[in-house]
């Protein structure tokens, strides 16, 4: 919460605020000092909030028409598409909204990786973010099962079977997850329940994510600690609100393009065939946003180790604030890290590509190399780089490189004397 005391102007406002300080909270959110150099990569937090609310609202509406029963789910989805007023629109927004959500979250995560936003004192923000990301993947997977098409059914079969890799208790856990001896009606009803629950868990975690953010304040493109409020900051409203709003409009154009022009391009045609436990589709491929992890799973020839590698690939991110030993946050001042960063981006894109291809021959070889490099980046490159890399000088404030001087005059003086020596 902000340092200064806030008192509402009106008498009623004061009366209310003394009993429940909602107005103090609103004032904190509007006045919240934000670094003035935030670029458009920082607008994805707002965009993600929009995505979450879109998914919750469209999901709520779909749940009014959807029937979670193995005999009726597929028909009820077609009923939504054909009979329900604007049902096609709402379902296409929900289905493509999942992809848009992941698109935004990947940009958000890679922004954090570039500018070192996960570093001290923002580790808790980062870890909450990773938990949100895991929940997003769970929600996306559960939701994909609900239309009860062939991809739904077999995707559910393959993913739940991952748990059978656990020694001794694996089979028992899978039976427990299914509520039977295969993916069937009991599985569908519980998946629907959990799919409905998770977005609200995410919403709660988003509140914590933002709360944790508002303690140290935003990181910024040059990754330095700034004085707040100062010449280096602008109030959240109207400056950031307008910027976020503009970026959101641009994002909505992309979103609308998918919804109205290619609503099925990110899905699989097989999912318009009703689930059939006797026939497996020729190619089972997860949704695009899970492909890099799928590639890691398949690149390991052992079942249990493959599952462990896939989970580690996600969980290793939680340890990132401690694996990256560099004191400098922003890649702008880290010439070597910047190159490794782009190699990692390419590596993940390659993993995504081979994840969509059959796991054989050259594709398998590429997947193995890319998997090895992924872990190498986090476990070897980052810890060593922090000690070996020669970083370039970091400005003392945001305004300093342009205007000279700094709100922190003592620091400027100290550095200048240091330079003269």
């Amino acid at each position, binding site marked *: 919460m902000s340092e200064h005391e806030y008192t509402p102007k009106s008498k009623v406002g004061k009366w209310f605020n003394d009993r429940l300080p909602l107005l103090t909270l609103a004032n904190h959110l509007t006045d919240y000092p934000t670094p003035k150099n935030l670029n458009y990569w920082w607008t994805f937090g707002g965009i993600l909030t929009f995505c979450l609310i879109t998914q919750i609202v469209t999901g709520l509406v779909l749940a009014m028409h959807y029937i979670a029963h193995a005999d009726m789910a597929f028909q009820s989805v077609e009923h939504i598409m054909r009979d329900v007023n604007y049902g096609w629109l709402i379902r296409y927004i929900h289905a493509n909204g999942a992809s848009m959500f992941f698109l935004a979250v990947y940009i958000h995560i890679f922004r954090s990786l570039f500018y070192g936003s996960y570093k001290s004192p923002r580790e808790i923000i980062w870890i909450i973010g990773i938990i949100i990301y895991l929940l997003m993947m769970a929600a996306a997977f559960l939701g994909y099962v609900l239309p009860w098409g062939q991809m739904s059914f*077999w995707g559910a*079969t*393959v993913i*739940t*079977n*991952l748990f*059978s890799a656990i020694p001794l208790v694996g089979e028992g856990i899978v*039976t*427990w*997850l*299914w*509520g*039977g*001896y*295969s*993916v*069937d009606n*009991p599985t569908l009803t*519980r998946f629907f329940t959990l799919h409905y629950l998770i977005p609200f868990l995410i919403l709660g975690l988003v509140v914590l994510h933002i709360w944790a953010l508002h303690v140290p304040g935003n990181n910024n493109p040059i990754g330095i600690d700034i004085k707040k409020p100062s010449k280096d900051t602008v109030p959240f409203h109207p400056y950031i609100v307008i910027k976020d709003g503009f970026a959101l409009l641009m994002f909505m154009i992309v979103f609308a393009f998918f919804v109205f022009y290619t609503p099925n391009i990110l899905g699989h045609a097989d999912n318009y065939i009703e689930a059939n*436990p*006797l*026939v*497996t*589709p*020729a*190619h*089972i491929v997860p949704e695009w946003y899970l492909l890099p992890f799928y590639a890691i799973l*398949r690149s390991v*020839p052992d*079942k249990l180790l*493959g599952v462990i590698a896939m989970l580690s690939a996600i969980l290793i991110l939680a340890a990132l604030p401690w694996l990256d030993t560099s004191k400098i946050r922003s890649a702008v001042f880290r010439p070597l890290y910047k190159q490794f960063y782009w190699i990692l981006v390419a590596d993940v894109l390659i993993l995504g590509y081979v994840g969509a291809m*059959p*796991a*054989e021959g050259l594709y398998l070889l590429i997947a193995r190399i890319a998997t090895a490099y992924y872990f190498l980046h986090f476990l070897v490159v980052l810890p060593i780089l922090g000690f070996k890399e020669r970083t370039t000088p970091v400005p003392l404030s945001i305004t300093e490189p342009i205007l000279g001087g700094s709100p922190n005059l003592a620091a400027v003086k100290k550095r200048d004397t240091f330079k003269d020596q």
Partner: protein
Amino acid sequence: MEKKTKRRDFLFTATYAVGAVGAGAVIWPMIDQMNPDASVKALASTEVDVSAVNPGKTITVLWRGKPVFIRRRTPEEIAEAKSVKLEDLKHPEKDEDRAKNPEWLVMLGVCTHLGCVPLDQKGDYNGWFCPCHGSHYDTSGRIRKGPAPTNMEIPEYKFVDANTIKIG
């Protein structure tokens, strides 16, 4: 300074212990309700008429929501399955142990990798091939190549009479 165990420490420990048992008693029904229910378990066995199955033909029946392959094998397939050396197998099992009556192979049509349904008469060993991640099975349903860890499972079954198999 040595800490003496007091009456109050005993009370705390006893309270925590009783609390833990109580919490467990409440949580277990919440967890166990997700296990297969009575109606699912009631469908645990099925009888199949195999009189129409000619040699070289496979029928697929649904048992506990899973496909079961019932294949009437040709003499060549039986010979091929029996000729394999055990040391060549990833999961060594004799064909005799998998097909008590060598003419009939009854097994779960579920790939032991991640649960897809393998395709009949495909793959490098004239048996089954799983399209999902490329596991090859032989004419006895044993894993020969690919990521699957074990042979396809043989369910409990028996011949009720010459033409009827009871699975489960």
